Structure formats: structure tokens, C-alpha cells
């Protein structure tokens, strides 16, 4: 009997502890930025502690040593957790979906934020950053960001490419990557080849570079090939969009099996089969980068800032031998480049939104992003950082890298996925179709099957009815 009573007391104590701890949090989830009207001050949220969830990234590395400067300026304490990318993405979903506000500020970007936005996990930033002098410092120049990067982090939550860049601002970019063609300048000179301007030339260029040098086989091209959406998102999607193809039509029907899409996919896969790595289907981005750095590959349509690795003689055999050019154009001379930006966002369930916003504002200011770029955070998301003499001097020996990337950012770069919340699932299925084609399945058949599966994913997620 006594034991039973003890159990009861224990259960009651546990119950009280559990529920008292639920309400034991300061701050409000429904913070209204417009409620603050007096002039801007950095110390407005002094004494609070915010939690950051960060991806292991040069931006993160550059910001960590100077977090104390932020605390000195604002009186806000910062705690953080850092994980490598894959684990980061898994954990942030658990943290956001718990709706516990355990994380205040996190890193995200266009495609990943789309699923968080649709789930209602992200705080819209419009009321903080646009037309609110009480919350934005005078020195913070919004027009200094490359416009495509702010646009890429905006969405109204309605699926469809016609909704790209509409709606609320969900995150502020701290870094950007676009996709350009890196090629072996020395091989091209030796073979008297000019960089490819379209995908026919791309194939011929790769073919010519695939040969034996001193008894060792070298390959004309490399690319990501693992069965996940990252294989789609980079070089492939850049070429796909340049070729005039789209992943969805206006009614969110999958169009990755349209005639032009099949044509482009065949060129892409054939080039890889004939001139690419033998184990292409297991090629992650680490492998591709290292393959190119090892000096065994002639060309790589990929992340622009991989140049940092290519041009580092301590770890690359191709330093000083690489040329850079825009991605090849499609049949009607169109060039598109997909973009990815790492950006900072606020958890909708954070109870420290004001402090979180002050952190984002500080971390994305000109000064901090300049310091971050000098510390290795490439490419900068602000024009003034790009033009900073010290930042500019970093790329001075990288052939024409700077001009090509600037040209790409200003004129050709935009998110080439259609805004919708299932990019990872759809991209994974699409990538598997590419692998099937590489293994011998007819391109039309493989893409038809993938398109049917993708239509089902869209239907199941409710996005189709949402557009109609």
C-alpha cells in the first residue's frame, strides 16, 4: 500500500514538473514587430540568450570567433550547435517540427525553406526588414544584396513557377553558389579547343578530352551522380533550364519527360557514359571535386566556388590550370544557372524573435559578411563585399573566375526548381531516373516512370489542388 502511494506521489510530482516546465519560458511566440516604434537600438533585447542551429560551413566558421562582439554590442548571449550538412538537415526538421522553439535562428536556403514555409515553421521577415526604421539600422543597406538572392528566398507558399519570388521574405542570404563550367585550360590549349558554348559542343569537348596521357586514362567530364536531389540541383538543372526545360507546368504537372527534357537528359547522360567516371552513380560532390582536383578530368559544370579548392596548390593538382566560363547555352542561346544560398531564418516558434532578428541583422551586415568572405565564405551575397579590394584580391589568380561569376550572378542566375515543398523527394526520384538511364534504360521510359511517380508525390502532398 505504501509503495502504491509512493508511486502516486511520484507520478503527481512528475506531472507537475512536466507541465510547469512547459510554461516556464519567457517571451512570446506571437511577437508583433510593428509594436516597436521608437528609434533603432542594438541593445533592445539585452540580457536574452538565443540559440543558433548552424551547418558546418565557412560562414559558420567565420562568425564563431566574433560572436563575443555581437554580445558586447547588443547584450544578447548566443549559444550554438553545429553539424555537418546531412545531419544538420535531419536535426533541424526534428527541432522545427517539435514546435518547441528550441532553436531561434537557423540556416536554410530556397528549396529547403519551401517545405518549412508550407509547414508554418518560419517567421516572415518583411515586418522586420522592410519599412521599419525601429528595427533596422541605417547602415544596413538592403539594396546591396544581389537581387536574385533576396528573390530566391521569397515565396507566397503557393506552388508553381509563376509564384517564384512572390510573397514574404523568409531568410537573408549569407552566401551564394551558382553553377559555371570549370575546364582544363592547358588541355584545351593542347587540343586547340575552345570552351563549349552549347551542349553539342559540350559533348564534343568531353569526347576530345577523353584519352590516354602517359599510359593513363583521363576523362572528359565529371558530375554528381548519387541518387539524391543534389545530383539534380547543380550542373544538371542548370543545363536543363538553359535547354528550355521545366520541372513542372503551370498546373504542377511534372514535365521532366517532355521531348526537349528527354533530349537534354540523353545528351547529359551520354556525355557522362562515354567520357565520365566509371562509377558515376556513386559520385558525390566530394568525389567529383576531388576527381577534378586530382587532374584526371577535363571539365566540370558545378558549384562556382569549388575554385577555392581547385586553385589551392596544397591540395589540388590543377591549380593555375583551370579556366572558367558560363554554362553552355540551350538551343535558343538561353543560359540559366540555378542558385543556392545559405541564408539565416527565424523559427516561427522562437520566443526571442527580436533578439534573433538583431542577430541576423548583425551577421548579414556589410562588415560581418566582408570579414566572413575574407575568412573563406564564398561567394559573398552582397555586392559591396564582392567589390571590396581585399576580397577581390583573393581571386586574382583564379583566371577569369571573378568576371564569370559576377556575370552569372547579375544576368543568368535564378532558382530553377519550381517553388513547391517536396523538392528533396522529387529530386531523389528524378536522380534515380538519371541513374537508370545511365545503366541502360531508355531515357523516355525512365523519365515517364519518374514523372508519373512525381505527379503522385505532388498529388499526395495536396499541392496540385492548391494551384487549381
Amino acid at each position, binding site marked *: 500500500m505504501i509503495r502504491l502511494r509512493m508511486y502516486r506521489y511520484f507520478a503527481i510530482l512528475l506531472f507537475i*514538473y512536466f507541465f510547469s516546465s512547459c510554461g516556464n519560458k519567457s517571451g512570446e511566440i506571437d511577437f508583433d514587430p510593428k509594436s516597436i516604434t521608437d528609434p533603432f537600438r542594438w541593445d533592445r533585447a539585452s540580457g536574452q540568450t538565443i540559440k543558433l542551429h548552424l551547418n558546418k560551413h565557412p560562414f559558420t566558421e567565420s562568425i564563431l570567433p566574433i560572436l563575443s562582439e555581437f554580445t558586447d554590442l547588443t547584450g544578447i548571449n548566443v549559444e550554438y550547435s553545429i553539424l*555537418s550538412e546531412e545531419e544538420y538537415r535531419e536535426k533541424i526538421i526534428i527541432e522545427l517540427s517539435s514546435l518547441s522553439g528550441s532553436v531561434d535562428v537557423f540556416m536554410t536556403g530556397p528549396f529547403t525553406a519551401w517545405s518549412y514555409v508550407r509547414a508554418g515553421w518560419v517567421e516572415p521577415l518583411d515586418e522586420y526588414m522592410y519599412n521599419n526604421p525601429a528595427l533596422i539600422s541605417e547602415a544596413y543597406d538592403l539594396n546591396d544584396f544581389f537581387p536574385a538572392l533576396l528573390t530566391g528566398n521569397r515565396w507566397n507558399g503557393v506552388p508553381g513557377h509563376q509564384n517564384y519570388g512572390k510573397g514574404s521574405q523568409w531568410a537573408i542570404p549569407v552566401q551564394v553558389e551558382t553553377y559555371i563550367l570549370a575546364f582544363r585550360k592547358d588541355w584545351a590549349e593542347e587540343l586547340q579547343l575552345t570552351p563549349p558554348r552549347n551542349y553539342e559542343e559540350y559533348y564534343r569537348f568531353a569526347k576530345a578530352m577523353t584519352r590516354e596521357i602517359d599510359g593513363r586514362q583521363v576523362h572528359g567530364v565529371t558530375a554528381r551522380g548519387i541518387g539524391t536531389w543534389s545530383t539534380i540541383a547543380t550542373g544538371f538543372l542548370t543545363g536543363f533550364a538553359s535547354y528550355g526545360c521545366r520541372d513542372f507546368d503551370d498546373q504542377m504537372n511534372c514535365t521532366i519527360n517532355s521531348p526537349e527534357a528527354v533530349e537534354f537528359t540523353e545528351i547529359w547522360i551520354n556525355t557522362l557514359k562515354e567520357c565520365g567516371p566509371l562509377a558515376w552513380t556513386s559520385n558525390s560532390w566530394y568525389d567529383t571535386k576531388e576527381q577534378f582536383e586530382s587532374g584526371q578530368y577535363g571539365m566540370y559544370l558545378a558549384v562556382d566556388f569549388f575554385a*577555392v579548392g581547385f586553385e589551392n596548390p596544397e591540395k589540388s593538382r590543377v591549380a593555375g590550370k583551370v579556366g572558367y566560363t558560363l554554362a553552355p547555352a540551350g538551343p535558343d542561346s538561353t543560359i540559366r544557372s540555378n542558385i543556392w544560398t545559405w541564408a539565416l531564418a527565424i523559427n516561427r516558434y522562437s520566443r526571442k524573435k527580436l533578439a534573433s532578428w538583431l542577430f541576423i541583422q548583425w551577421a548579414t551586415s556589410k562588415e560581418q559578411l566582408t570579414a566572413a568572405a575574407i575568412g*573563406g565564405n564564398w561567394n559573398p551575397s552582397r555586392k559591396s563585399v564582392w567589390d571590396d579590394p581585399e576580397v577581390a584580391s583573393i581571386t586574382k589568380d583564379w583566371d577569369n573566375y571573378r568576371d564569370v561569376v559576377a556575370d552569372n550572378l547579375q544576368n543568368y542566375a535564378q532558382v530553377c526548381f519550381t517553388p513547391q515543398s517536396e523538392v528533396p523527394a522529387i529530386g531523389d526520384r528524378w536522380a534515380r531516373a538519371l541513374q537508370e538511364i545511365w545503366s541502360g534504360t531508355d531515357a523516355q521510359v525512365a523519365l515517364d516512370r519518374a514523372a508519373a511517380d512525381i505527379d503522385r508525390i505532388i498529388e499526395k502532398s495536396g499541392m496540385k489542388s492548391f494551384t487549381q
Partner: protein
Amino acid sequence: MKRSRYLAPKRQTLIWLALAGYAVFALFPLIWVVMMSFKSHIDIISPVPKFIFTPSLENYKAILFGGQSMQYEAGQTDFLLYFKNSCIITISAVVLSLLAGVPASYALARYRFRFKDDIAFTFLSFRFAPEIAVIIPIYILYQKLHLYNTYVGLIFVYQLITLPLIVWIIRGYFEDISVEIEQAAKLDGYSWWGVFTKIALPLVKPGLASTAVLAFIFAWNNFIFGLILGSSDTYPSTVGTLGFISYESVLWGQMAAATVITIMPPLILAIFIQKYLVRGLTMGAIRG
């Protein structure tokens, strides 16, 4: 004709060759990781695998003392903290499991009481579902109970790994001890506690040691609990090792050095108690 105990030299050589071949096959990944930990990045990514190279301690220096930061790719400097976390969490989890699990397994082996089999089955059921299936409710619970990112929380959740293992294996060992020995001890005047500590425990000592090592290895290698329920202060080395996957490259050399250091504690432990390990694992094999 009586068959010789010894094999013919030719046959013996063949068996030796086969065993040596298997040893190379089994140990090669480990040897490769050890070699990688002494290589420079250029040697590691060399298109032709390099077996002869100039060894360097740079990777170990980088992970133990920090300061490594090739341009753009961040170096890891928190490895020692993660290693310490692994030691604290794993050792505490195993000790706690032994303290709670050994008496429990003795009770399950020796006494009759209500719901005995249900309780034993409940312990086993902790291992039915993969950890990922229960991690979100545990995460939410831990957030609310303030156990998230604490050693206590992680030691507690590691019981899901170590406790069922200890309870079920040790229970088998206790069942193998003849009841008559314990009854004789009781006749000599021992209390049940005396029987447990002076008779039963010494008899299952080899089994206890091997089970504790197995529990240690399982707990040491766990990844998902540390990842989801820990944070930068409490990540174990399994999560910390992934920190060498930087944004656009894997720091293979440092990752290999971290792996070599991480496998040391279970390896040393296994070598030291190898005698018990073999005896312990085969102890319950023959039932009288």
C-alpha cells in the same frame, strides 16, 4: 587406424593461407584508415592508391590541438571534448545499467513473481523498434524536462541500448548456475544478499565482464541519440567525427585520425578482457 591429431603439412599450409587471406580481407579497411591518418590530403586523393608515403602527424596534431584550417575548409578543434563526452556518457550508462540490470536479471532468473515474464519482455521490447522511430517523442519530452543537451539525459536514454542487453544476457548466466549451490550457501547462513554477492556474482563474473564490454561497444558506437538529444556541449565522438565533412570537401586525413582515436577505448577494453570475453560468450552454450 587412428587419425593423427595433426594435419598434414600441405593441408595445414592451405588452412594457414586461407586464414591469412581472411585476416587481410577483414583487417584491410582498418589498416587503410590507420594509413590514411598519417597521409597528407594530396596522398589520400591520389588516383593511384599510395602504400608508400611520407608519414606525418599533421592530422593528429590538427584534431588534438586545432589550428588546422586549410583555406576555406574548416578544421575541427572540438574533438577532445566529443571524446570526453563519449567516455562520460558511455561509462556512466554501462555502470548504471549494471547497477540496475544485474539485480533485475538475478530476480528474473531466480524468483517467481507476478508479471515476471511481462517485465522481462518489456526490457527486450526496448530493442524492437529502431531508435529513429521513437526519437521525436523523446526529443519533445527531453525539451520539456530540460534533459536535452545534458549528460544525465543522454546517460538515461542510453539505457535503451545497454539495459536490455545486460538484463537478458546476465539472466541467462544466472539461470545456468545450479540452484543447489545457492541453497547450500543459504544453509550455511547466508542471507539472500550474501548469496547474491558472495556466490552468484562471482560465478557470473566472466559473463558480466563480456556483457559489460558488449554494452560498452554498442553504447560507444551509438549515433542517433547523441545527434538528436545532444548539442555542441554533449555530442559524442561518433557525431563529432562527422564534423570533418566540411561544406565542400571531406577532411579524410583528420577523419581517419579521429576514427583511430575513437576506436581505441573499445579495442583496448576488448584486448584486456579477451580472456573473459571468450569464456563469457560461450558460458551459456552448454546447459546441464
